[in-house]
């Protein structure tokens, strides 16, 4: 094996592990951004329901224009279902739309489950109960965000350094 090949191999290993570390840290940041976006959606939904008494599909359509992907797409698709003949509960529709739309999201399994659960509290209640349900969910979101923010800088650095370090360790073992 020539020296040139060895150098190329080492560079490839270090680059790959570093890239993996970078991807992990970026996923963590994306999860943080998605949680913040969800909080914004809930804030807007609370306003639409509580102050405007806007029907839920119309509210979804309005909010879709003010948030980023993937949520804008999910809410837009939700709003389009207003015209269809109703054949399932709101909770089922919520689960279908968010389940499909968030298939490639960075949210944790627990966070996705909590979001799915919110669907069963929307639709059949008076606005005060509706707002209370949204507020309770927002509180959970805030806890998740606070928890994540506490460890986000450290974890981001850790993932990146570990990526590089792993590459170096593998190189030493191989060489």
């Amino acid at each position, binding site marked *: 094996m020539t020296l040139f090949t060895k150098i190329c191999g080492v560079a490839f290993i270090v680059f790959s592990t570093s890239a993996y570390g970078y991807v992990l840290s970026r996923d963590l940041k994306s999860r943080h951004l998605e949680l913040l976006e969800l909080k914004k959606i809930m804030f807007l939904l609370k306003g639409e329901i509580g102050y405007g*008494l*806007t*029907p839920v599909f119309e509210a979804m359509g309005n909010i879709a224009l003010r948030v980023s992907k993937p949520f804008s797409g999910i809410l837009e698709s939700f709003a389009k279902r*207003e015209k269809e003949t*109703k054949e399932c509960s*709101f909770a089922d529709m919520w689960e279908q739309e968010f389940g499909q739309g968030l298939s490639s999201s960075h949210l944790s399994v627990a966070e996705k489950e909590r979001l799915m659960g919110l669907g069963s509290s929307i*639709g*059949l209640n*008076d606005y005060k109960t*509706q707002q209370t349900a949204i507020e309770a969910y927002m509180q959970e979101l805030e806890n998740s965000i606070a928890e994540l923010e506490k460890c986000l800088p450290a974890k981001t650095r850790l993932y990146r350094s570990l990526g590089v370090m792993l590459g170096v360790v593998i190189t030493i073992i191989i060489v």
Partner: protein
Amino acid sequence: MYEQINVFDYLSLRLREIFKIWEAQGDIREIRLRAERPLLVYTDNGENQVQVEGRAVVVTRKDIKETLEYISNYSMYAYEEEIKKGFITMQGGNRVGLCGRVVYEGDKIRTIRNISAINIRIAHQIVGCSDGIMEKLYDNGGTDIFNTLVVSAPCCGKTTLLRDIVRNISDGFMGHPGMTVGVADERSEIAACNMGVPQNNVGMRTDVLDGCPKSQGMMMLIRCMSPRVVAVDEIGSEEDVRAIKYAVNCGSRIIATVHATSIEELYRKPALKSLLENKIFGRIVLLGSREKTGKAVGIYDGEGRKI
């Protein structure tokens, strides 16, 4: 614009399946859902108990919950003001009466919870029912309209006739120009608004103030929308009379309805005395009894003379 809505599409899936085999769906006037009680349907021929394979169909709480979800478009909170009055107006103008546990806040009704009974009344506006009397309501060579009072006993077609008069005035009738009409629709019976949009055909120049008390609504309409004609259902209080005088003084014409079985009974009503003595109404339309629902049995001028 006035889209025909299939009311059965708003029932729970189970009940929808049952109605698929129901003959003469068009004859249905009312569907009554009561939790743990048989499903009842009212047609022109009276009450029918819905049966499948000889057994009465019993409505479940799940049926009611599901039906409510569909009727409210998954947004019960958006109908809160209507629920406080005990009904929801569906798309298509169908009226859904609700019963359950009433929740109070202070001395006012906040909402109805645990809804256990739904009464779906299928809208039946009769377009053209006022055509026979319209010519007699026009004044000044057809460019103006008389202040008109429609009089009948309850359930004899006053509101149906009023709605059609509004439509004719608004769209213009047989070459007469259309006029701007303001409707103060306190109980959503004239225009049957759903989310503010009239579900009944009340004409192209009609503005509807939905759910607002009549007397306040008439004044608001005059100040905000400057209607040529103001329409209002079931007048009777002193406030209503004051608002009518205000509207007439502002130059608007009034089309109103009132409960009375005869002209004599109408003139005996104390609240309307000042309006009738001052001959505010140029036309009084008396409707027939239940056997002659919606048919005018007499049209009178402001003096009470039959014309």
